[in-house]
Structures are given as C-alpha cells and as structure tokens.
C-alpha cells in the first residue's frame, strides 16, 4: 500500500481539524482574545485541513480512479420485512474523484474565507461564536463531501443547514437578519423532508433488489450494482418519485426555483458567510447531491427532464432579478442562484461531471466576488450600489479582484467561468438532437449568458467606475483593505483566472473523467472537457462569448463612467422593472401561502388543541372534581360510621363470593 492510498484512509482527519477548532474556540471563547477571539485558531486548523485535503486530492490525481472507503458500523438491525438480510447504518469516509474535487473546493475556500474574516470581522462583537460556528460548518461540509452513504450524508447535510441558520442570524439583534435566518431554515426544511422521503424510497426499492447493499450499509460504492440489477422499467414510477424527492432536497439547498427566495435574503449574514456558505460550498451541496444521485442512485428520464427544467428555468429566473437590484450582495446572490441553475441543468442532461466542473469554477469566482464585495462594504459601510462609484482608484486590489471575478462569471475566455459554462452549453447542445424537449431550457441558458455579463458589469461599473461616488465623500474616505483580506482575494483571483484551464492538466482532468468513473460504476456519463472540443462547439462558444461581450457593452452604455440609466419610459418596460424589483412577487406569494394556507392549518390545530385535547383533559378534571365534592360528604370522622362502611363492604364481599360469583360461573359455563 503506497503513501497516497494510506493517506486516503485517514481522510477522517480532514473534517476532524475544524471540529477541534470548534471545540477549542467554543470552550475557551473570550479567553482567546489575543488570537483575534479565536480567529487565528480557526485559520490554523482550517489551514491544516486544507493541506490534508490537497494531499488527498493530489493522491487522487496521481492514482486516477481510486476509491478508498473506510467505515465502521454504527448499528445493525437484524433482518425484517423489506430488508431480508438486515440493515446497517455505517459511518465512514469515501475518497473518490468527485469527493477529491470537492475537498479542494471546500478546504481552499474555507481557508481563505477564515483568513479574510480576520480582517473583515475585526470590528464585530461575538467573534468566538462566529469562528466556532464557521469551523463547525467546515466540519459538516467536509462530512457531506466525504460521506460514504446516504444517511450519513443526510446527517451532515442537516448540520450544514443549522450552521447556515446560525450564521445568517449572526446579527441576531437585527429583525431582518433573524427573519432571514428563519426563512432559510424553514425553506430548506421543506426540501429536506422530501429528501428524507426520497432516501426511504430508494432504500426500500434497492433493498428489495439487492439485500446485500442494505446489509452492508447502503455504501455509495456498492449502490450502482443495485441500480443496474434493477433493470429498466421496474418500479419506475416509485423510482421517479424518489428522484423527484431528491431533486426537491437539492432545490431547497441550492435555492432552485421555487425554493429560491431564501438565498438573496440570506445576505443578511456577514459577507464572509455569504462567500463561504451561500456561494461556494453549502449551496453547491444540492448540486453535489444530484451528482451523487445520478452516479450512485440513478434517475429516470422523467427525473432528468424535471432537473433540466428546474435548472434551466432557474438560470434566467434569477439572472433577470439580478439585473434590477441595487444591493451589491443581492446581485451576487441572485447570480449564485442562476449559476447553480446551470449546474443543475448539466446534471439533469446527464453531464454530472460537467456540472461538477462548473461547481468548482463557480465556487472560486463567486467566493472571490463576495470577498471583493465584502472589501467594498468594509471600506464604504454601505451595500447600496447607487451610493458607490469611483472606488477603483482607491481600492486597486479589490477592483482587480472584482473584475477578475466578473470576467470569470461572464464566461470570457480564458477566465475560469468560460470553460465550465461553455462546456455545459455545448454538452446540452449535443443532447438537443435526442431530446428536443430541452430546447427551451437551452435557449434560456443561452439568454442568461447575456444577462449574466450585463448584471455583473452593471454592479462593477456602478461600484468602481466613474469620477467619484454618488453619495458625496464616500469614495474619499474609502481605503484599501488590510493584507489579511487582500491575500485571500489574490489567491481566488488567481483561481478565477487560471482555474478553468487546470482541466488541461491530465491529472486534474482525471477527476472528471467518465471512463474512470465507469470502471468502478458502469454508468454511461457523457462528458465534454475543453481539450476535446469538436469544431461545432467552437462556433457555439463563439456565440456565447459574443453574447457575454454584448452584455458588457450594454452595461457600459447604460452604467459606465458614472452614468445612471434612467428608468425606462414605456409602460410594459416599467411594469417589467417593477416585477423584477418585487422579485416576481414570489416573496409575497410565500407570505400569502403562509398567511392563508399555513395559518388556517394552524388555526385548525389550535382548535383541536384547545377544544378536543384540552377539553378532554378538562372534562376528566371536572368529572372527578365534582365526584370528589360529593364523596367528601361521607368523611364524617365518626369511628362508628367507618365501621359501618367496613361491615357493609364485608357483607358485599360475602354476597359476591357466595352468590354472585357462583352464579356467574354457572352462567358462563365454566368449571
């Protein structure tokens, strides 16, 4: 056994280090004041975790296609109905190409965000809480990435959600932050309940087909055989339902339509949290779940279409809303929703690995955009784009970082976003001949390319270009951020510029290689990676690059050089603008559903609680109270009376034993 395989068996250590940081910071708290209230502890442990994660990923690149599963059985349920050979729940780590890739993403972004937090959060209070929960989040996210079975995956999935809740509500004294935290928790919970139902259906289907799989703990590495044994058409309705439930779970976590509104509101949390959790890692977990689903569990064709439809629609749905918002963080948040739509789209079309590639590049440039936005907010203490302007001269590093992220997001070659987004579009285009029903979603995704570059450059021009800020004095007081914030931005800028081209490195590309995947799991996963572009795809990518450049030019014409585009004159355009600013009234629709639907259910429950349950309890109470009021009269305190009761009882006993019991026995015919 060589060093790298040996290392894979210690993958547990990767999430263990942030967990240690959580314990240390959580228990020592303010006593770590000298270490930035625990911040440096979190950074160091996240750094160790990153080194380990990178080593494991390098091992995976050197020995492509290795699958190392280390696990221990938590408990076993003996055989029962539905599980002929029993059922066991295992906890363990699986190192495979996709988890190696996710390790790179999560540990790198986690580390740079921790480092950035040192500067960004410096002026806040409650920092031990912040660093402890951020470390716990990192542990949970790495648990999701390394989980080797679906139940363990779900456990960490929920833990990630709860950390997200705590961090969105970090400024818990602010009502909007508290309500955003609640909203995020409840909306993702809708998806999670369905996800759990999906897990149960998958287990019941596959346990019937392959009892050994259930007995060995539903390990991902054995899951595929059950899927293949299932054959085509068997239980396909149930399987479709399970896939749809899984999609619902992913849509809740990845903020896909119609569960998308929580993510822009989650921007109430610190910007660092938005960068780590709501751009790069947690929201990508939904996509990761779909990738795992398509690799190990299997989707039916209806599921695939639903995934494509949800993803494709979400791209344009969120991108259009990003065009009108004035809060710099919300613009980027909508952009995240839109980009996650691309990934979901790719997975649904069968290109799980392409989706994963976009997940990786998006994590880099989106975290970068958030960190740059955070740097701006740090300097000017407002999030309103219309107050900013002219910041480029004051904040050169930040402007450079934001620009790199914006180019990557727009998909301008050779920035990272170009390779992955274009890969998705050309892969999808290749499927159009077989699946003409994908056409509308392909066109939506293509139109989104234009919208994407428009809204992100609108944000860039508004914040950084122009002679000076629109709110007087804002730009004059702005200053560049300290080095702890600049270094993370520079690292991620590097990734946003060259990260996409890493696929030309054979080792790195092997993380996405369908052939290696098929060696262990015989499922055909169509995949394009840039080096193998045929000619048609170059024409395709020319179209999307032209669209992106067009978006930049339109943004420059409307917002460049300090210009403010006037509101459109025509009535339909105004109505459209209003609709977008109101977020398609989705928020209102949720409120309405909550107010009428949930509230009437709540009132029904209240009625049952108050009158049926309480009524029963109170009825008992009243009966016995009344009875005792009457019974207390016989307590005279006179000895003779008690003697009379005793004798009466004795006589009754005699009567029963001597007369009633024999009569009963004779009646019932007993002997």
């Amino acid at each position, binding site marked *: 056994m060589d060093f790298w395989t040996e290392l894979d068996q210690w993958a547990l250590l990767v999430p263990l280090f942030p967990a240690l940081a959580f314990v240390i910071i959580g228990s020592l708290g303010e006593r770590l004041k000298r270490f930035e209230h625990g911040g440096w502890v979190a950074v160091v442990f996240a750094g160790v975790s990153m080194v380990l994660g990178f080593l494991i990923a390098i091992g995976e690149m050197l020995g492509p296609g290795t699958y190392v599963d280390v696990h221990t059985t938590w408990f076993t349920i003996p055989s029962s109905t539905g599980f002929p050979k029993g059922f066991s729940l295992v906890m363990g780590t699986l190192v495979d190409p996709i988890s190696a890739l996710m390790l790179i993403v999560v540990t790198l972004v986690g580390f740079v965000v921790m480092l950035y937090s040192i500067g960004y959060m410096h002026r806040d209070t409650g920092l031990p809480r912040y660093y402890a929960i951020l470390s716990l989040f990192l542990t949970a996210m790495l648990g999701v990435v390394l989980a080797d079975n679906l139940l363990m995956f779900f456990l960490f999935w929920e833990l990630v959600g709860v950390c997200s809740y705590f961090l969105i509500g970090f400024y818990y004294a602010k009502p909007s932050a508290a309500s955003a935290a609640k909203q995020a928790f409840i909306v993702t919970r809708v998806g999670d309940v369905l996800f759990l139902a999906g897990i149960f259906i998958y287990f019941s289907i596959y346990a019937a087909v392959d009892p050994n799989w259930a007995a060995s703990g539903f390990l991902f590495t054995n899951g595929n055989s059950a899927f293949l044994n299932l054959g085509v058409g068997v239980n396909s309705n149930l399987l479709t339902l399970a896939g749809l439930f899984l999609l619902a779970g992913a849509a809740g976590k990845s903020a896909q339509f119609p569960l998308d509104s929580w993510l822009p509101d989650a921007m109430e949390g610190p910007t660092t949290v938005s960068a780590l959790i709501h751009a790069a890692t947690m929201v990508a977990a939904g996509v990761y779940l779909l990738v795992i689903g398509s690799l190990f569990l299997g989707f039916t064709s209806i599921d695939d279409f639903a995934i494509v439809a949800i993803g494709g629609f979400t791209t344009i749905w969120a991108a259009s809303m990003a065009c009108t918002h004035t809060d710099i963080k919300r613009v980027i948040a909508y952009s995240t929703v839109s980009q996650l739509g691309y990934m979901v789209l790719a997975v649904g079309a069968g290109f799980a690995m392409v989706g994963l590639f976009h997940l990786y590049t998006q994590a880099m440039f989106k975290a970068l955009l958030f960190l740059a936005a955070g740097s701006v907010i740090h300097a000017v203490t407002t999030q309103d784009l219309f107050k900013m302007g002219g910041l480029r001269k004051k904040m050169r590093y930040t402007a450079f970082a934001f620009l790199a992220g914006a180019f990557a997001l727009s998909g301008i070659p050779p920035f990272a976003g170009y390779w992955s987004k274009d890969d998705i579009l050309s892969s999808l285009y290749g499927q159009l001949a077989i699946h003409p029903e994908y056409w509308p979603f392909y066109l939506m995704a293509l139109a989104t390319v234009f919208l994407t570059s428009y809204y992100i450059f609108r944000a860039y021009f508004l914040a950084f270009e122009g002679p000076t800020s629109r709110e007087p004095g804002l730009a004059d007081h702005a200053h560049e951020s300290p080095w702890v914030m600049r270094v993370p931005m520079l690292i991620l800028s590097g990734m946003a510029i060259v990260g996409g081209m890493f696929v030309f490195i054979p080792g790195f590309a092997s993380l996405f290689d369908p052939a290696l995947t098929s060696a262990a799991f015989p499922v055909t996963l169509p995949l394009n990676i840039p080096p193998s572009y045929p000619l048609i795809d170059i024409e395709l990518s020319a179209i999307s690059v032209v669209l992106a450049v067009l978006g930049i030019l339109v943004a420059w014409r409307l917002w460049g050089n300090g210009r403010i585009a006037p509101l459109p004159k025509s009535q339909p355009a105004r109505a459209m603008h209003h609709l977008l600013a109101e977020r398609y009234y989705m928020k209102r629709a949720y409120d309405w559903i909550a107010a009428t639907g949930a509230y009437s259910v709540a009132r029904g429950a209240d009625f049952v609680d108050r009158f049926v349950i309480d009524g029963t309890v109170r009825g008992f109470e009243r009966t016995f109270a009344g009875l005792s009021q009457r019974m207390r009269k016989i307590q*005279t305190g*006179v*000895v003779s009376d008690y003697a009379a009761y005793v004798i009466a009882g004795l006589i009754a006993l005699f009567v029963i034993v001597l007369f009633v019991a024999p009569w009963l026995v004779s009646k019932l015919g007993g002997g």
Partner: protein
Amino acid sequence: MTTLSIDGFIGLSIALLAISIFGILTRRNFILLLISVEIGMNAAILNFLFFAAFPNRSPFFDGLQGQSIAIVLVGLAATEVAVGLAIVLALNRLKGTINVAEASSLRE
C-alpha cells in the same frame, strides 16, 4: 347420650357476632364500643374451639391447633383491650368525654 351437632355452637357464635356488630354500629360510648369489639373477638375464638371439638367438621385444623390458636387470640384480645383503654384515657384527657362521635377531627 345424644350426639351433639356443631350447628348449635356455630349459631351461638353467629349470635355473638351479631350482637357485637350491633354494638359497634350503635354505641357511642367508647367503653361499650370496646366491649362490643371484644364480644366479636370472642365469637371468633369460640369458633376455633368449636371446630377443635369437632375435628371431623374442620377441614384445616386438628383439635390441638384450634385450641392453641384460641390461646393466642385470647392474648391478642387482651393486648387490644390494653391499647383501646389507653385510647379511651387519651381521648378523655383531650376532649373531656369518651363519646366517639365527639372525636371527629379527621372529618373533612
């Protein structure tokens, strides 16, 4: 010599028990109450002795066992009277009367 039947003797103890119960239920004087209880006790003791005298009618005891139990019960009755008289004295000291109807402070 005519053979005696146990029925007459049992009738005697039933009569004693009836007197005793009547006394317990009607008397308010503690001393009379005690005497009534003692009469009931003696009805039971006599029953043991009667069955001891008619071993063929007693399914459980031979003569000696019945008589032994009777002796024990006489002792028990004496003890009970001692306790009862002590209560009478205490009651008298507390309430100035030995009427049991007066001793009703356990009433609700």
